[in-house]
C-alpha cells in the first residue's frame, strides 16, 4: 500500500463521513469501491477517524464509527453530517457535465438529470454555464447507439455518406471508441466492408442499427489513442510563426521546430482531400515538405477548384 498524502486522505474522509451518515450500515467493500480505496485503507482511515472528535476527546465526544468485520456503522450528531461544499471547479464539473449530458441523455435518465440540475441551481445559485456538444437529436441517437455498441462490443450497421467518395455506402462496423475533435464526433471502428480500421464522422451516418453480434478480437489499431484513422500518414509541413496555434489544433500535430519565423511540424493526414482543402484555406502560407509526392497538393487542389469557376457557363 502506497502512503497517500494527508490532504488527499482528509478530502476522502470528509466525503466518506457524511455519506456514511446518510447511508447507515454499509460494507467496507462498498466504501472501497465508491471512493477508490483498498479495503485496508478504508479500515485504517475509519479506525483513525473513530479516534477523532471534539475536546476533551472523551469517548462520548469521539465520532461514533464502528468497523466490525466487514461492516461499518456510523452515527454523527452535529459534525460532518452534511456534505462538504463544492469548490468552484467541482461546481463547474457538476453543471458542465450535467448540461452536456442533457444533449445526449435518454428517457427517464433525462428527466432525473433535468430535475437534479434544477435543484443544484436552486441550491448553488443560478449560473448559466452551458455546454454545446454539437449534436442534434438524430446525431445524439446515433451516438448513444454506437456508445452502447462500444460498451457491449457488438456491431453496427450504418449507411454512411463518405465525404470523399460520391456515394452512400452500407457497412457493418465494429466500433471501439468515440472521440470529438474540433466540434465533430468520430467513431473509430473496424470496418468489415473496407477490411480495416476506419474513422467515421457521426454527422455523416444517415442511419444506424445495432447488429447483435459480438465483435471478434482484432489486433489493436496502430495508434494508441484511436483518434485517427489507421491509414493516417504523417506529413511534415512548414508554416509562418503566426499560424502556430492553428496548426497545434490539427490532428496529431507535433511541433518539430517551434522557433523562428518559419516553423515546422508534423500532422496526421487521413485523406489528401482534407489536406488540399486545408492548404488552400491558408492561402499558400503552409507548405508540405514530406512526403514529397504531396508537395504540390495545395497547387493541384487550387487548380481543380479554379477549373469550376473558369469553365464556360453551360
Amino acid at each position, binding site marked *: 500500500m502506497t502512503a497517500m498524502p*494527508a490532504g488527499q486522505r*482528509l478530502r476522502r474522509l470528509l*466525503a466518506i463521513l457524511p*455519506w456514511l451518515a446518510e447511508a447507515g450500515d454499509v460494507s467496507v467493500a462498498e466504501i472501497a469501491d*465508491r*471512493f*477508490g480505496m483498498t479495503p485496508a485503507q478504508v479500515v485504517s482511515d475509519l479506525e*483513525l477517524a473513530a479516534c*477523532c*472528535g*471534539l475536546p476533551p476527546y472523551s469517548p462520548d465526544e469521539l465520532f461514533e464509527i464502528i468497523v466490525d468485520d466487514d461492516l461499518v456503522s456510523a452515527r454523527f450528531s452535529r459534525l460532518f453530517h*452534511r*456534505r*462538504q*461544499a*463544492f*469548490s*468552484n471547479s*467541482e*461546481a*463547474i*464539473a*457538476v453543471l458542465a*457535465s*450535467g448540461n*452536456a*449530458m442533457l444533449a445526449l441523455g435518454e428517457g427517464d435518465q433525462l428527466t*432525473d*438529470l433535468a430535475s*437534479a440540475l434544477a*435543484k443544484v441551481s436552486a*441550491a448553488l445559485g443560478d*449560473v*448559466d*454555464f*452551458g455546454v*454545446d456538444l*454539437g449534436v442534434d437529436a438524430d446525431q445524439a441517437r446515433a451516438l448513444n447507439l454506437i*456508445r452502447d455498441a462500444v460498451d457491449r462490443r457488438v456491431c453496427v450497421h450504418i449507411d454512411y455518406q463518405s465525404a470523399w467518395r460520391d*456515394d452512400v455506402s452500407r457497412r457493418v462496423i465494429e466500433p471501439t471508441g*468515440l*472521440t470529438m*475533435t*474540433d*466540434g465533430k464526433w468520430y467513431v473509430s471502428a473496424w470496418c468489415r466492408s473496407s477490411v480495416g480500421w476506419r474513422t467515421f464522422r457521426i*454527422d455523416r451516418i444517415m442511419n444506424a442499427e445495432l447488429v447483435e453480434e459480438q465483435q471478434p478480437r482484432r489486433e489493436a489499431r496502430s495508434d494508441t489513442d484511436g483518434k485517427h484513422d489507421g491509414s493516417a500518414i504523417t506529413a511534415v509541413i512548414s508554416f509562418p510563426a503566426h499560424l502556430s496555434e492553428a496548426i497545434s*489544433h490539427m490532428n496529431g500535430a507535433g511541433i518539430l521546430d517551434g522557433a523562428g519565423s518559419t516553423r515546422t511540424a508534423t500532422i496526421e493526414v487521413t485523406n489528401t482531400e482534407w489536406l488540399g482543402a486545408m492548404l*488552400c*484555406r491558408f*492561402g*499558400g502560407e503552409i507548405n508540405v515538405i514530406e512526403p514529397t509526392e504531396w508537395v504540390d497538393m495545395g*497547387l493541384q*487542389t487550387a*487548380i481543380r*477548384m*479554379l*477549373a469550376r*469557376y*473558369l*469553365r464556360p457557363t453551360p
Partner: protein
Amino acid sequence: MSERLERLTNLVALLLDTKVPLTLENIASELGMYPADSENRRASFERDKKLLRDEGVPITVVPMSNPVGTSGYIINATDFYLPQLNLTDSEEIALRLAIVNLPVSDDGSDGALLKLGGRFSAGQSAIYELPVAPSLPDVYQATKNRSTITFTYTDRLGSSAKRTVDPYGAICRRGFWYLVGHCRDRQALRTFRIDRIAERSLSIGASNSFERPTDFNVANAITDDPKLLGRGEVTLTNVLIGPARAWLVEQELGSESVVDRRSDGSIVVSVPMNHRPAFRAWLFGFGEHAEVLSPPDLRHEIVEWLSKMASPNQHLGTTQ
C-alpha cells in the same frame, strides 16, 4: 502521516464546532497536538491551514482584540457545508452518471463525484472529456456573484488589452470555453475565449455589481457558426453544391437554406457569412464540389485567392 490526518480532522471539527473564533493558543491547548515551542507551533499550524484551504476547507481569519494583534480562526458552517440539494436517489445517479460520462478534464470532476457519493463500481467510462481553462473557476465565481471582472485578453489577431466585463455566463463549444458578457469598454455584448485570458490577470470586483438581463441565455447569446464570428455586416452568399455533397450540405444547413434544386441533383444554398477565413475553410472543405455564385465580388475574391495558390507558371483551368 496518520498523526497529521488525526490532527487535521480534529482541527476541522474544532473550528467547525466553535461559536467564537479561536486563537492559535486556544487551538493548541484544546487539540494538544501542536509543538510546545511557539515558533514551531506557528509554522506547523500555518502548514495545516494552507493544506485545509487547498482541500477546500474555508477557514475564516478574524482579527482579535484580546490579546491585540492576534488572529482568531473559525470555519463557518454555511461556508463549509453544501446547501441541502435534496436529490432523490435516481437524480443523484443521473448526475453522477453525467459526471462519469462527460467529465471535465481537471480534478473538479473527481472532487464532485466524491461529494456526490463516489464512483460507480464498473462499466462506466468517459465518452468525452470537457476542456478546462485556468481562469474558468474565477469566471464561475464572478458569474455566480454578479461581480464585474477585469482581465488582460489576447484577441484572435494577437493583440492584448485590458477588458472590463460583466460576466453573464459561459459556454463550452468546439473544445473551448467562452465567456459571454457585457463588455464595459465596448458597451456591448461580447464573447471571449477563456483560455485567451492571461493567467493570473483576472481580478474579481464586488458582488452584485450588475444585473444579468432576465432573458439572457448563453446558448442563444453567441453563434455556433464560425462563418458568423466576424464583427461586420452579414452577407448572404449563394453557393452551388454538386450532387455528391448535396445531402451533407442540406443536412448541415437545413432544407430552408436551399434556394434552388437542379435536375442533376445539385443544390444552391443561401449561406450567411461575415467571417471570410471561416467561410473559405467551409467552402474549400467541399473541394471542387462547391462554387460561390454570388455576390459577384465574393466570387471574384475566391477566384483571386485560388489563383494566388496556383503557381504563375501553371496554365490554369484546362477547360478555359
